């Protein structure tokens, strides 16, 4: 075991995967020589050579298409999109191609590509460095969607994604790269050093795709979160002393409905959350499915804690970000209903 932040653990995942399987290669804008603007791929080119970790031209569609072609030939490409905001030029290759190759060829070709990309706000990135576009990808049959919330999970899930026979879009909440974040920007930055999920094995391990984790047990309300908001939800529950059960979803597609339903059936109340704008975000899918699944257990309407239906503003980032107060409001709402 070693202390790692999320950048290091993701780097370690790539390192282990590349060590183990010579078909694993990594590329992206600034992701080769320099090792990525967030340094997730640092050192890989030096260690594995120019053709296993390399720089790509600034064309996200071409990066994805290149990965698809390589995967069809048996490689295991891990493509980095520098910011999730810049995944949109690639979305046609993801929606129309990557997701469907297995289906439309009836299994004659498969393209187990991982598209890694940092997402989310909280770093004053403004509207083009802050998006959480995960819900777009959860709509696409054939794609698995993952978003870890800590270094330990990030590594285990990234290796699992690379080894998955299916294509994966892997979101890395960039606000968590260097430390957990409870939603209070005025506090001193925390690091992963003191966090138990900052303890990361140096060797190869995987976590199961599709499994959520109850990160806090409780009886009064279930909070479903993923990525950065896991920490915010925890902070909100702690701050208010609420007996909340908090689920870290980790995988969005396929999401772990059993774990969620068991919890909501127990607590009878539920808050679902996402950092993205409210309308048609992934929390809507969760709410829709949970009310169907647990209707008779529910004692109050499911509340959604989300970003607003606006672009991510720069200066008023913290008015947009769904911080602890917004969780507390929603929890009160469901508890008092």
């Amino acid at each position, binding site marked *: 075991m070693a202390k790692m932040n999320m950048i290091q653990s993701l780097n370690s995942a790539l390192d282990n995967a590349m060590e183990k399987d010579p078909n694993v290669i990594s590329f992206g804008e600034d992701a080769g020589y320099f090792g990525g603007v967030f340094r997730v791929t640092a050192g890989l080119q030096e260690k594995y050579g120019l053709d296993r970790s390399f720089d790509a*031209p600034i064309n996200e*569609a*071409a990066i994805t298409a290149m990965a698809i*072609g390589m995967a069809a030939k048996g490689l295991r490409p891990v493509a980095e999109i520098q910011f999730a905001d810049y995944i949109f030029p690639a979305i046609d290759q993801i929606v*129309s191609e990557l997701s469907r190759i297995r*289906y*439309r060829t009836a299994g*004659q070709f498969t393209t187990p590509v991982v598209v890694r990309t940092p997402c989310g706000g909280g770093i004053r990135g403004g509207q083009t460095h802050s998006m959480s576009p995960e819900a777009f990808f959860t709509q696409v049959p054939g794609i698995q969607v993952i978003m870890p919330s800590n270094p330990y999970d990030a590594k285990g899930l990234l290796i699992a994604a690379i080894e998955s026979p299916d294509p994966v879009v892997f979101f890395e909440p960039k606000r968590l790269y260097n430390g957990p974040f409870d939603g209070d920007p005025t506090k001193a930055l925390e690091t992963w050093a003191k966090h138990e999920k900052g303890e990361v094995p140096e060797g190869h391990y995987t976590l199961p795709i599709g499994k959520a984790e109850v990160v806090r047990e409780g009886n009064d309300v279930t909070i479903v979160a993923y990525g950065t908001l896991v920490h915010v939800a925890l902070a909100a529950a702690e701050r208010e002393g609420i007996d909340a059960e908090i689920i870290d979803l980790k995988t969005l597609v*396929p999401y772990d*409905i059993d774990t969620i339903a068991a919890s909501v059936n127990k607590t009878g109340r539920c808050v679902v959350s996402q950092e993205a704008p409210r309308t048609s975000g992934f929390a809507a899918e969760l709410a829709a499915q949970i009310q169907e699944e647990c209707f008779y257990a529910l004692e109050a309407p499911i509340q959604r804690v989300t970003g607003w239906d606006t672009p991510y503003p720069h200066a008023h980032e913290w008015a947009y970000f769904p911080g602890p107060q917004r969780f507390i409001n929603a929890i009160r709402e469901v508890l008092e209903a």
Partner: protein
Amino acid sequence: MTQTDPRFHVPAPHARPGDTPDFSHIEVPPAGEAKRPEPTVAAHETRDLATGLVRVLDHNHQAVGEWDPKLDAEPLREGLKHMVLTRVYDDRMLKLQRQGKMSFYMKSTGEEAVAVAAAMALDKGDMVFPSYRQQGILFARGRDIVDMMCHCISNSRDNLKGRQLPVHYTWAEGNFFSISGNLTTQFPQAVGYAMACQYKGESQIAASWIGEGSTAEGDFHGALVLASTYKAPVILNVVNNQWAISTFQGIAGGQAETFALKGQGYGLATLRIDGNDFLAVYAATQWAAERARAGLGATVIESYTYRADAHSTSDDPSGYRPKGEEAKWPLGDPIERLKQHLIGLGEWDEERHAALEKELDELVIKSYKQAESFGTLHDGPLSPVESIFEDVYAEPDWRLRRQRQDLGV
């Protein structure tokens, strides 16, 4: 409101319905004129070849000039056969589509050489990423016709389980990648595939085809950027058949001299060839494949040809171009030209040709009977209904398992 002069430029073709077909603006250089540099030549030295037109078969149907691939009669006859089969097959399938046997069909009439000659010049192991109009590759590579038809009529033996539109073939065994309904997406994929071939230390290369209309897509540029940056062993074919559904080539081409010339901007080798000349297509592909295998990177080949029939069974060209335009196409018909060439060589004659056509037509008819014995889209049997939930993922997750239950299958 009356029509005024357009306030910005919008290109228009030389002839519209009602006009007399007019190809007088097309310059056809004599066959044999183009120089053939060594495949090791510097990319920028192929610039002239991007604006010229590599032609081997002259107006007397004789093979002339440096680009003559000097094929024996046997492969020429084989090529002719594949082209005739392609045409016969297309014609039959169109009829069947009109009879409601399949939902949709796309012919490649007039463009058979582009696919067949290229396929013959490639190794069978080379991976092809075609568009929907290169069915000729399948014939050249010996795909079973019954299997092809089973796909087109989506029956129980369709190797794509009824999931794809007709003519959107996949044939992994034959190194034939999945055809996408989305234009141009395969172009950059082919480059990635080619890079992976090098990565694996194999001599395999990749080739892809798109239409001239499809060059307008961003993925065209993406493919050329990748090919240029990583010097990938790939052949990037642009089939300029003059039309993209109802829009003529000028809507994609704008003020560009040729489509091949775009490759020069990326430092790629470029050839513009007579796509209705079997020998030119063969020679160009061979040249580009040799170059790619030598590690010298990609070639952009523009095949100049004409879409002699409708875009698809959903299209009626009489709405946007003069009737009979195809007959006036100055580069003739690829089958006729190769046939006359072989006759000129004393290696073929009208009787054998008629016999071949008859034989292949019978083969196609017989094959269709056989295919139909496995079902048709209209009357079934199809792939089992529950197969729609398979292959979305390697294993269906709970959502798909439940949905299958919901459907009750």
